[in-house]
């Protein structure tokens, strides 16, 4: 069973304790200056945004079929069976394809570093495998960020929307977007207002499928194309050989 985070924006009070707990968990600096930053960066994996007195949290969505993991040439990113999409800094060569491919603009880069790393929320993989909640869910005073089984959280989100339809947009963001994500969001406002890509824009097709359609043909293409090229080579050179042999024969006959 895979784990997930449910973020209910209507329950969020904007205290930003999740930001602090996240920084502490990942050994990142956190003070008033960082707290005031309203953009995610290499040192700020998650951010609580405010628009018209309504709050919204942004963090890596932990896609069921992550684009970042599929594009990484060295497999530095991968989806664990528990749900988190984790990063192995040792493997990373720094091509930044993950950043370009991510539909949610989540991976960030240490541009100032001489040995830079890709940085993003990794859903506290150590805590999750140990059966604990993520740091952000644990500290959340209102339960706006809730950690649990993905299936159960989906049912719960549906139930909350059903009981209070006037409080929510009737949509669970992350249920089917790009094939589903391990972070689910329900809110009173449109998530697009907070910089999320519109559901219609990213669609429900898992991102790796776009390249998969081409990549899966390659194993067949290689032998076929090799035979074609080899065949053309053989035919055109055979013709030369025949022409040469005939020319020699002719010369021999004349002599």
């Amino acid at each position, binding site marked *: 069973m895979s784990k997930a985070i449910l973020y209910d924006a209507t329950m969020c009070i904007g205290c930003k304790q999740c930001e602090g707990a996240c920084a502490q968990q990942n050994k990142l600096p956190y003070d008033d200056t960082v707290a005031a930053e309203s953009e995610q960066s290499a040192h700020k994996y998650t951010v609580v945004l405010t628009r018209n007195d309504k709050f919204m949290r942004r963090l890596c969505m932990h896609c069921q079929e992550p684009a970042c993991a599929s594009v990484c040439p060295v*497999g530095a990113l991968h989806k664990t069976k528990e749900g988190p999409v984790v990063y192995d800094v040792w493997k990373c060569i720094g091509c930044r*394809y993950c950043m370009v491919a991510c539909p949610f603009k989540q991976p960030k880069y240490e541009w100032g570093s001489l040995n830079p790393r890709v940085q993003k929320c990794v859903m506290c993989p150590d805590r999750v495998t140990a059966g604990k909640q993520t740091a952000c869910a644990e500290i959340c005073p209102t339960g706006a960020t809730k950690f649990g089984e993905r299936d159960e959280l989906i049912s719960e989100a549906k139930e909350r929307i059903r009981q209070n339809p006037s409080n929510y947009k009737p949509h669970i963001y992350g249920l089917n977007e790009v094939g589903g994500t391990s972070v689910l969001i329900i809110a009173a406002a449109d998530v697009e207002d907070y910089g999320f890509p519109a559901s219609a824009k990213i669609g429900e097709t898992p991102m790796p499928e776009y390249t998969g359609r081409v990549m899966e043909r390659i194993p067949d*293409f290689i032998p076929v194309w*090799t035979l074609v090229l080899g065949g053309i080579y053989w035919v055109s050179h055979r013709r030369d050989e025949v022409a040469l042999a005939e020319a020699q024969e002719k010369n021999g006959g004349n002599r």
Partner: protein
Amino acid sequence: MKFKLTFWRVIFIVIMVLGLYSSYVRYFRGLGTATNMTDQFPWGLWIGFDCLCGVMLAAGGFCMVGAVYLFNVERLHPVVRPAVLTAFLGYLLFIVGLLFDLGRPWFIWHQMIYMNPHSVMFEVGFCVMTYTTVLFFEFLPNVFERLNWKTGIGWIKKIYPVLIVAGILLSTLHQSSLGSLYLIMPSKLHPFWYSPALPFFFFGSAVAVGLAMTIFESTQSAKAFGRQLELPVLVTLGGGLLVALWVNLLLRAEDYIHRGLIRQIFTPSYEAYFLWLELTLTFLIPISMLSFRKVRMSPQLLYLASISTVLGFITNRLNIALIGFETYIGHHYLPKWTEFSITLMIIAMGFALFGLAVRYLPIFQTETAHQLEQPEPIEVGAGVLSHAGD
């Protein structure tokens, strides 16, 4: 003559000095200081030009090898060696460019041990690595002839069919896969440039640019080294280029019609201006020019048409890599001077190495090139390309 050489040497030295300083900034101050790349714009000029365009500009190698050794277009024999040399240098410099762009270039060898077969980037990397090796072997006869080492030439001659087939197979794969890199960004890349047919476009443009670059470099080196231009060679290439451009144009037009973009293309917008520039340089100018027999028979005009083609497809790839993302990201990206400086340094290194190779190796000695092939060159079964030239 003496003055001209000195002039270009001064330019070269200036470019190299600035480039070395920029390299220092890149490696000792970091990518953030050396470039205008950001979290919003993680791929800049180095990916757009050095990588995407660099590989395209080096496509002449596999095009000429294919034309001569697969399709027996004997007339093109004299340009195979310079084309293979350009390709070999192009790929080496592509790797140099990559060492600047990668955040952790000292781990580039991880590509060989931590393979992710689902990644297009892995496929490109692997093909480029192998193809550079193939090009090295295709280039070796130059060195062996210079050293007059007959045994070595014999070895290469034995594996030549394998090199030819492998080289073209690998080129087909990675030239098209460079386009596949962008398939995973349907919501980010502007619809003018995002298309499911990107791999086909990238391969098609590689062939057209391969032909155009061969015309360009033949003319250019004829000028620079005071060699005789062989008109039949250029005429054949020009005809091939015309066909390649038409194929590219039809593919692109079909794609735009299929995706219902025609109206949007003719509506002025930021992206439309760049698209118009691209289409004018890639198709309008060279196709109009090459449609006239007079142009196809004139080295000077062929040269101009090939330059327009090359610039057009460079614009195309920069549009895909940079301009096509600006609306999605919401701001413009202009490379920092250090980015330009490093790109210029890499180009200058290419020219310098080409010059050195031509001076010290039998690149333009076509008589010896024939030794690798048939004992007696016989004009038979001309392929598609040679007909195109008629």
